């Protein structure tokens, strides 16, 4: 085993949890760097603990490393103490498997999972000694690419990447690696490589498009600036999930990851069509894996990793049409192999006693549900098809099974919201408390209902992309009012400060000019923005001012139904017409049925090339 370099040993001796920076975890893949043709550093722009909980990385890690002549390694943002030591000691950011600096790689790929990680991306590039802007890099630098849900509005980060992937990476990223392999073999220029990449379904090469703005600053158009570049980039999807089985092995973190268990993705997409939810729109259409594939992969995964807890993940696992079959298949082997099953995101509307019984380890202490809004009217507006009766029935089952804590997720700042709806949040919680005491319950055991209230952020590719975000003052007012409505100590309200949501809203709907703001804020010290203790709103405001841009322009202004948007050259699947239609229905508080009951004609079926159901 190679000895760690002295400088790295020095840094490790000075930081908390050094095991985050050493690699070597069970399941990690080491190859001979000299013997492979393509080296990719898969970068997650957040801490090890968060990144190692991310399933997407595990999927792509296994797929890429299955190619004998490619080597995919992992890299995370070091925590503050380690980052400072690396800067002080001149240790460039390295990938965990080989400990080689990122500059030694052919491809450096970032996963953009949320808007507030944008400065973390710049911090990682800087720590690696790589110029931030694509325009400053020639073919001697690694190809810097991105993927993940944030690419559905790629513009705010477009200046920093050579290529961005819209959609699912399984096939797309393999095509990119193949193109890089060919480029190295044939000595292609960076321009030539980028042209090849632009031809891969789902790949967006920002430098090949020019943006125009109106005199008043509104976005006008984005067009290719070279022949042969597609005017619209269409999201790539895996049509048949069974054709790409889930990972059979994970790199098993030793320093506790947030999600530290075996995990199999059972379906992709969501049939619900909640109007606030970007994931529910941009992962369409709904596709399922078959029970046999799921059970067999899960078993292999548990055997290979030694995990004793298995979770079946997706946006909405209980919507799998053959869920009971999956549970039966898994339960046929799991107990004998000391594996227990947990189901995340159970839905209020199809939570059944039999499901509870089939999940062998549901932590009896806590249960979570997401009604999202406090009144039926507002739930109809956002198309969250959950009724009080369903919630009551679910809580009844849960309480009878011994649960004593319920966590309810809500949002605040939703379109058409009034104080009545805010009061509804407190009332809903109180009704759950009252229900508990109306039933037989163990003597002396009280109930705890926690309302976790997030600030709603309008996102592109949702029917609410047309809405303006609620102002901070209004949200604060609503938070105060909510607290005044809570009368019982059994009800606890958690909410977050809205400053980060403001920034999230600006980036979500922002245009390419924001790249300058992100860079200016980063140069002024912005990083770790998801961590409240490091988030400095004033620093961001100063960066906007320095760039002559007004953040309010992006998130506090409604988007016209016909108005051009900075993501118009991308096609995530759902059509603008459908989104506008859903928006109008929302304003009338009219719900829409889930896809498996009735198609709403969103347009995502074209990605599949056949009807969804």
């Amino acid at each position, binding site marked *: 085993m190679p000895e760690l370099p002295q400088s790295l040993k020095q840094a490790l001796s000075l930081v908390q949890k050094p095991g985050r920076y050493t690699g070597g975890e069970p399941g990690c893949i080491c190859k001979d760097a000299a013997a492979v043709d393509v080296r990719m550093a898969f970068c997650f722009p957040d801490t090890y603990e968060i990144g190692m909980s991310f399933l997407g990385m595990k999927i792509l890690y296994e797929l890429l490393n299955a190619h004998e002549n490619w080597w995919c390694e992992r890299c995370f943002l070091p925590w503050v103490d380690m980052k400072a030591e690396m800067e002080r000691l001149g240790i460039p950011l390295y990938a965990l498997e080989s400990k080689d600096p990122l500059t030694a790689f052919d491809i450096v790929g970032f996963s953009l999972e949320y808007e507030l990680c944008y400065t973390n991306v710049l911090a990682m590039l800087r720590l690696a000694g790589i110029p931030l802007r694509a325009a400053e890099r020639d073919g001697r630098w690694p190809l810097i690419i991105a993927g993940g849900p944030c690419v559905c509005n790629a513009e705010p980060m477009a200046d920093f990447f050579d290529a961005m992937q819209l959609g699912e990476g399984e096939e797309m990223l393999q095509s990119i690696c193949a193109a890089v392999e060919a480029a190295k073999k044939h000595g292609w220029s960076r321009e030539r490589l980028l042209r090849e990449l632009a031809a891969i379904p789902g790949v967006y090469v920002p430098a090949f498009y020019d943006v125009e703005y109106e005199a008043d600053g509104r976005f006008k158009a984005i067009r290719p600036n070279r022949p042969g570049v597609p005017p619209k980039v269409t999201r790539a999807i895996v049509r048949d999930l069974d054709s790409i089985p889930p990972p059979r092995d994970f790199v098993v973190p030793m320093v506790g990851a947030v999600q530290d268990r075996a995990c199999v993705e059972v379906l992709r997409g969501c049939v619900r069509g909640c109007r606030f939810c970007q994931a529910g729109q941009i992962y369409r259409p709904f596709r399922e894996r078959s029970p046999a594939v799921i059970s067999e992969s899960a078993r292999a995964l548990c055997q290979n990793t*030694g995990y004793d807890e298995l979770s079946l993940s997706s946006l909405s696992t209980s919507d799998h049409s053959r869920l009971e079959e999956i549970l039966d298949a898994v339960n046929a082997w799991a107990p004998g192999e*000391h594996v227990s099953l947990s189901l995340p995101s159970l839905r209020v509307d199809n939570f059944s006693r039999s499901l509870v019984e089939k999940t062998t380890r549901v932590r009896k202490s806590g249960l979570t549900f997401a009604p999202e809004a406090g009144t039926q009217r507002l739930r109809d507006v956002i198309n969250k098809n959950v009724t009080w009766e369903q919630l009551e029935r679910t809580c009844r089952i849960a309480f009878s099974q011994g649960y004593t804590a319920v966590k309810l997720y809500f949002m605040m700042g939703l379109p058409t919201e009034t104080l009545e709806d805010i009061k509804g949040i407190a009332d809903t919680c109180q009704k759950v408390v009252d229900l508990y005491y109306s039933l037989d319950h163990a003597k002396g055991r009280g109930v705890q209902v926690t309302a976790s209230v997030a600030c709603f952020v309008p996102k592109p590719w949702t029917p609410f992309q047309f809405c303006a975000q609620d102002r901070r003052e209004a949200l604060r007012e609503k938070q105060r009012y909510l607290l005044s409505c809570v009368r019982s100590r059994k009800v606890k309200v958690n909410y977050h400060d809205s400053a980060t949501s403001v920034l999230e809203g600006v980036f979500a709907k922002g245009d390419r000019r924001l790249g300058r703001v992100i860079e200016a804020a980063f140069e002024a010290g912005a990083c770790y923005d998801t961590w409240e203790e490091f988030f400095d709103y004033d620093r961001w405001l100063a960066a906007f001012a320095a760039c002559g841009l007004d953040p309010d322009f992006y998130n506090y202004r409604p988007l016209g139904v016909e108005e051009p948007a900075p993501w118009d050259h991308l096609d995530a699947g759902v059509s603008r017409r459908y989104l506008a239609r859903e928006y109008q229905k929302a304003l009338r508080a009219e719900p829409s049925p889930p896809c498996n009951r009735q198609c709403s004609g969103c347009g995502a079926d074209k990605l599949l090339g056949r009807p969804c159901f």
Partner: protein
Amino acid sequence: MTTVRIFFEKQGEAAYVSLLDLQRVFHRALKRSGLPVWYTEGFNPHIYLAFCSPLPLGQESVCESCDVKTAAEPPYGAAWAAALQPCMPGGITVTGAAAAVHKAGEVAAARYAITLPAAAAPALAAYNAAGSVPAEKKTKRGARVVELKAAVPALSWQGRGDTLRLETTLPCASDGENLNPALLLGALQTLAGEAGAAFAPWQCRILRTALLLPDGTPFC
């Protein structure tokens, strides 16, 4: 039920694997191996395992061990080691497994090979010359001063290029006297500072080479 002692090395990057993390690593490796180890009874059964005199974070060892229970007959040896190795992180090498001869509580001392930068020589000489070398030992019940010279009256070392290597035996009883080699290293650093030849902990390597019984024979 037999107690099987699994011996392993913990070196290089594995030095940064904490005891808590190591427990999880072994739990998973044992589970994955399918070896017939004993699970605790109860609502949430888990594999019984216990580490003998586990190493502090950052130190390395060629003589760590983990006890499990089994109803299976011996031999365990190479077959068990081979079954466990694939699930181990880099730096952990399973060297063998055998029915435990001694009880974990019988460990009295540990032997260490410590590598220091050559600049540490004056500090080592100062240690030998000093009448007393006190060190503050932090325990759960508060700090307490121990006399290092009582445990290690003198150090002898050999130069190797730009490093020095010394070997020493320190008390290592699980429920009695116990001296972390980092304490000795800390005292040497203080002496080095006084001698105007400072060195840093990361320039040193602490390798545990053996666990010993009261009579000085190896624990196994």
